[in-house]
């Protein structure tokens, strides 16, 4: 049986507005994350991802509901130290001092986390992340990718069981992204990851929760999310000939098995509900000088748009 490391029970958070009212940032959130799982938290800006992360990392308290981390209730002050030892929080490339060198940053955090023999550990982690040679420089001189690697080194140095990573790979070049994705996959840690980069989530996460306006819309595996969209088959094609575009659109709209037609310049995307309509559709398209006809694989972006 999977060991549940993080569990939330009707977790809610409200903020008071200056005007006197209240705004609900999270509403009755119920999630559970298993040991060793990489759990993705997806949602548009303002969905409540950072609020949830802040509560789980003990930075703020929920208004109602509660969460258990390793069975310890986060609301109890007596549990704070036990929980804090087990959590490593990374908020993008922040939480490091730009006015200090990379090494001084890591040394400082190692000391306040009471880590023995930190020099060896720092060398090992930063060598793996490819920033060991930069450690003597001020962080303000680092590139964004190097800052992110340093921020990740800080989290790995404290050797937490649970990593909470808020937008850990935002704004990186593809090569660095690929490297860090592989690195995170090989860590074998329980990871709660928030992002709105679908390709990152797709590569990393076992399960994904969609959060919108403080509510969990759905929690499921990637495969099941994609099945959501498989009720429709989407086909794209191009029609460079301007004069024929209105004509083909009119004819397609007359076909009752076509659910949707999107047209942007010379590109058309249509949805059909079954493959049995394919021959008829191709016959119809064959009457026009269409190009690049292909079926579009559903992506998490589509799920994201559909759910949010």
């Amino acid at each position, binding site marked *: 049986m999977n060991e549940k490391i993080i569990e939330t029970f009707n977790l809610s958070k409200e903020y008071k507005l200056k005007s006197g009212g209240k705004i609900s940032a999270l509403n009755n959130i119920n999630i559970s994350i298993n040991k060793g799982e990489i759990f993705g938290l997806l949602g548009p800006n303002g969905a409540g991802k950072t609020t949830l992360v*802040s509560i789980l990392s003990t*930075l703020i308290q929920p208004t109602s509901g509660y969460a258990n981390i390793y069975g310890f209730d986060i609301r109890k002050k007596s549990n704070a130290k036990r929980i804090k030892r087990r959590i490593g929080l990374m*908020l993008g490339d922040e939480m490091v001092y730009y006015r*200090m060198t990379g090494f001084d940053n890591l040394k400082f*955090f190692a000391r306040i986390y009471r880590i023995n023999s930190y020099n060896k550990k720092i060398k090992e982690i930063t060598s793996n992340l490819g920033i060991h040679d930069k450690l003597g420089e001020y962080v303000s001189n680092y590139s964004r990718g190097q800052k992110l690697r340093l921020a990740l080194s800080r989290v790995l140095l404290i050797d937490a069981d649970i990593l909470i990573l808020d937008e850990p790979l935002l704004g990186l070049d593809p090569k660095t992204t690929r490297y860090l994705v592989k690195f995170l996959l090989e860590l074998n840690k329980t990871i709660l990851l928030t992002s709105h980069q679908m390709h990152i989530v797709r590569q990393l996460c076992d399960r994904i929760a969609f959060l919108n306006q403080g509510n969990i819309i759905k929690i499921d595996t990637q495969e099941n999310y994609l099945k959501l969209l498989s009720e429709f088959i989407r086909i794209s094609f191009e029609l460079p000939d301007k004069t024929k575009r209105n004509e083909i659109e009119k004819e397609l709209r007359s076909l009752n098995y076509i659910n949707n037609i999107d047209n942007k310049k010379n590109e058309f995307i249509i949805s059909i509900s079954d493959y049995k309509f394919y021959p008829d559709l191709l016959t119809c398209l064959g009457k026009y000088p269409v190009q690049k006809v292909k079926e579009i694989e559903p992506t998490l972006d589509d799920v994201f748009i559909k759910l949010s």
Partner: protein
Amino acid sequence: MLTLKNLKTNLIQIYSLTVKDLKLSTRYKLEFVVECIAPLLALFFPYIIFNTLFNIKNNIFGGYYSKENFTLFLLLGNCVTVLIFLLWYYQDLFYDEKTWKTLNAIMIAPINKVNILLGYLIAGIISKSIPIIFILTLCFFLYPISLPFLLLSIIIVLCISLTFASMGFVLGVFEIVNEDISASLSVGISFISLVSCLYYPIDIFPKEIHFIIKLNPLYYYFDLLRLIWWAGINYEDAWGFITIYHFIVLATFTVISPLIASYFFLKVYSKYGTSGY
């Protein structure tokens, strides 16, 4: 239970926090040097004004201010001004730590929050120590006193730094939870500090409002610092102005202000957390 191992761990954490803050404040060396020198430059005009006034009449203000001691009092006032800057030191520091989100990184570490405050406190006082040592050396060079009086003066300076650091913490926590309140408090506290007879004697104010000034604990701090140093030079002239209230206020507020400030900081922070970033 406090074991030797725990004590060692706590000391390491406090030391690390102190070193970190000192590294941050000395990152830009020239900026740091300017911050040390700038308060002394502020003495230039008061010196000219006071010198002119005392040339007109030696006992122009009444009280114990005279042509012989006003330079010393200006320097000691300047020493306190450097310590008043602790208010903005903490305000800036907590603002920076909030925006860099490093405060979050520290607060989620398994570290006693009192250690965090002690680290900030020691770093703040050390960061102001260079100009303080320089000014006190200058005072000693111009107005030499015996060791007991010097030690007593240094103790009073430490008491003043603790009190201003405490007030800095109050400003700092509001910088974290609500910058509007912090800005208003900052103006209020600096106004109170500046109308505490920092550079001038109470006698320049009309007698009717002396009781208002004497309600302000800071007045006793600054008055006592001047009087103790002056007593080291001219005991008879100064001693008559020192009262038991000076010592009672100094001792009481030096002890209670850090305690209240720490309690207030931790209460407000845990209730409201970081806001705005």
